[in-house]
């Protein structure tokens, strides 16, 4: 189906700006933006990404060291308990009970294990930024790029690093140069661990020869296929293999061996494949780390990358079938500006198509959850509730099933509708009767975008919670 294109009514345009480019309106936002919706989006871009300066959050390297220390400590405790159990066998029953209890008390720390604690703390900051944002365009960009360059918390140490990764490698660059974000991402320990490069040895490197270790082409392939050029853009298996050799040695200081630098990026010369490599027909004779940086620079400025990024941006924000003209214009802006993402994003939000396209896209689960909370004024009381809800909706936070990330295509999400209803219902119960008059809720959430049918359905609800659940599930609130 397609909801009608938005009229030129300025409140309708403000509501569209909030839903299509932001995380949905908070009460009063539609009126606030109505004077100049485009200007408000551009102003948010100019203000740039707000850094997350929560003192409770540590750097990824600190998190890595703390996690490894935690794991070693747990291992020692397990061994100590085993020793104690075998030596305490002769003790009398009563004593054993008592010592067993106190023993348990001393080893079992309250709350979830450290990696999960770090993950939840980061999740809280990630959601809070989306809830606090004015419109949310910059936060949407953080989510978009985080998904484009995704890592998975389900891979070993990455659980402790994935949140910091988004703060360190993604957030600062969403309106900067694409090449800077690319370099930050591909040298970040979370990515190097996720796609196995931290353990990829040049077959003829010093360490590779001595330890009989070799190449792992996982990261090399996905950089070309997913992060830059896009699949079927002309590179060959030889390009993948050679590029994988170029980035051998891009690794991570193991926290077990390096007390101070553990968890930081490590260019390990001893793992690096020596010699020049040919990638996409060009010879790279640089030595060491510079060789990989040069190839990344070439990939960042390749025309195929411009097309790939432009297509993904338009598909995410505007339409499942991206209008070819708009993609071509964004790709050109990308090429002309050397991948300046501020200029590319400005071109996107000021394009006529961005305001004309029918609202056919289904919000992704996390976007929809944030919009639901913003419109109903719910605060994060227990972040696990949000994490669980996003799981249930098929988009578990920082846990994509594959390096391609979650789909931007609406077709992938429509079957989750019943789960959305359960979440909407739960949200409405939490809000209870504090949700305000149904008509006012519809106005604040949708303004002129609300159809007569939706207004009537919400107005006729048997209770305020039911009215809110129906509003959150209405087509105009689901689609953008």
């Amino acid at each position, binding site marked *: 189906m397609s909801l009608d294109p938005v009229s030129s009514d300025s409140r309708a345009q403000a509501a569209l700006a909030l839903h299509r480019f932001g995380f949905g309106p908070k009460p009063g936002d539609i009126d606030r933006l109505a004077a100049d919706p485009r200007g408000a989006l551009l102003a948010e871009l100019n203000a740039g990404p707000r850094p997350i300066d929560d003192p409770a959050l540590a750097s990824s390297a600190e998190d890595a060291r703390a996690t490894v220390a935690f794991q070693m400590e747990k291992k020692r405790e397990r061994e100590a308990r085993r020793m104690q159990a075998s030596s305490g066998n002769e003790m009398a029953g009563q004593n054993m009970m008592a010592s067993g209890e106190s023993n348990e008390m001393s080893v079992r720390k309250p709350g979830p294990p450290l990696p999960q604690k770090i993950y939840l703390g980061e999740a809280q900051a990630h959601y809070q930024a989306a809830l606090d944002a004015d419109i949310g365009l910059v936060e949407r960009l953080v989510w978009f790029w985080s998904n484009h360059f995704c890592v998975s918390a*389900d891979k*070993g140490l990455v659980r402790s690093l994935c949140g910091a990764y988004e703060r360190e490698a993604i957030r600062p660059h969403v309106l900067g140069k694409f090449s800077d974000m690319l370099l930050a991402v591909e040298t970040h320990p979370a990515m190097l661990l996720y796609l196995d490069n931290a353990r*990829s040895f040049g077959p003829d490197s010093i360490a590779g020869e001595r330890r009989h270790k*070799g190449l792992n082409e996982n990261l090399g*392939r996905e950089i070309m296929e997913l992060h830059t050029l896009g699949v079927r853009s002309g590179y060959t298996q030889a390009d993948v293999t050679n590029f994988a050799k170029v980035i051998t040695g891009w690794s991570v200081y193991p926290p077990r061996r390096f007390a101070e630098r553990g968890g930081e990026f490590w260019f390990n010369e001893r793992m690096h494949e020596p010699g020049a490599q040919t990638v996409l027909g060009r010879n790279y004779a640089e030595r060491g780390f510079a060789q990989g940086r040069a190839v990344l620079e070439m990939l960042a400025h390749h025309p195929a990358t411009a097309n790939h990024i432009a297509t993904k941006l338009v598909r995410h924000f505007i339409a499942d079938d991206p209008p070819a003209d708009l993609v071509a214009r964004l790709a050109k802006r990308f090429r002309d500006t050397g991948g300046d993402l501020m200029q590319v994003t400005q071109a996107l939000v000021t394009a006529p198509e961005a305001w004309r396209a029918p609202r056919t896209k289904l919000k992704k689960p996390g976007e929809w959850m944030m919009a639901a909370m913003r419109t109903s004024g719910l605060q994060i009381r227990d972040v696990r509730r949000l994490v*669980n809800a996003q799981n249930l909706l098929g988009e578990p936070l920082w846990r994509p099933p594959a390096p*391609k990330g979650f789909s931007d295509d609406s077709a992938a999400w429509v079957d989750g509708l019943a789960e959305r209803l359960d979440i909407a219902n739960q949200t409405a119960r939490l809000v209870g009767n504090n949700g305000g008059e149904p008509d006012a809720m519809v106005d604040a959430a949708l303004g002129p975008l609300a159809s007569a*049918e939706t207004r009537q359905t919400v107005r006729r609800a048997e209770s305020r919670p039911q009215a809110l659940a129906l509003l959150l599930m209405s*087509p105009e609130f689901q689609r953008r």
Partner: protein
Amino acid sequence: MSNVFHAPSRRELLLASGVLFAWAHLPRAALAEGRDPRFLTIVLRGALDGLAAVAPVGDPDWVRLRGDNALTLGSATPALPLDGFFALNPAMPNLARMYRAGHATIVHAVASPYRERSHFDGQDVLESGFVKPGAADTGWLNRALATMAPAERARGGKEAFAVGPVTPLIVRGAAPVMSWTPPKLPPATEDTVMRLLDLYRHTDPALARALEERIDLAKIAREGGLAMSPQKRGIPAQKGPGAYIKTYFADSAGAAAKFLARDDGPRIGALAFDGWDTHADEGVANGHLALWLDALDGALAAVESGMGPAWKETVVSVVTEFGRTARINGTAGTDHGTATVAFLAGGALKGGRVVADWPGVGEAHLYQDRDLKPTTDLRAVLKGVLRDHLRVDARALDDAIFPGSASVKPMGGLVST
């Protein structure tokens, strides 16, 4: 994609990505013969290492190729002998048992027509049934269904289902698809649902259709006792490494079977399991891959028991986007390759054999000097099953279902009709 380790919430992740579908369409031509066939497809996402699942222990180059990673009949945990040349990974005793009973067939050195090494394009070709990736946004299973007549049964032909909120390509298309997820939250009241449905019917037919299907499905699930925890449904709690994976695979495959087994249930379904991308520390005998194969084996056993008497009319096909490098890479894993295995299981099979035009794994025989060479087209296998088991029209198989595959003849003799 990479190995995924055993994080506590792995099960939830899979619940989100493993998906199970079926339709209310009936294989009418088969029904006319007095049969009532069931067909379930399991897609293994991430590219299964076929040589680690089914080892060519009789190939003189095998041990030279993989060294310590080569499964043999003399391994610490010996591989399970199949036919004197091939042996099955020891993590799959149930499949071995089915094989001996004539209820499983293994096809080796098999590949889809895709010859590059992108997971996502490879899955696109595997699931779309087209020769090239990105050619269509419908799946071959859905188009096969579209050639069958819709059921006209008690519930108006809507009793079909899926598990999970994300729709995979293999089942997308014109034929109606439904999905089902075990309930975790207190559901909305029926009154709320009906009001919402009424709104959708007036404003957004696509959302209306999605919601209607879920309502019907929830009803079947309640009636079938599926709205309960796995343990209450008699799925034993698993312990130890991989417990989440084993429980999840067995649970979702078992639920699929129970739906398919019902007299008034759907007849065709699909299910996807992630986690086969073994770039590092593959663990053929007792690591990651062994756990995943163990879980797959448990899933096949759960289908067998969940089907009950309908097992004798069942074919399950297990397919993956491509294989992996023949040699072990620098990190005790394997990178993306070409040919691999496909499994068929079910009481309707004339099984108990390995079908392979074996290319050999000597240096000279490898595809592009790195992968197992493909000698059998996966489409031939699927076309054989669709034609002989479900009686799908042969011309539709060549054109609509696997477009451009007229030269790929359906493999005969797979099912015992």
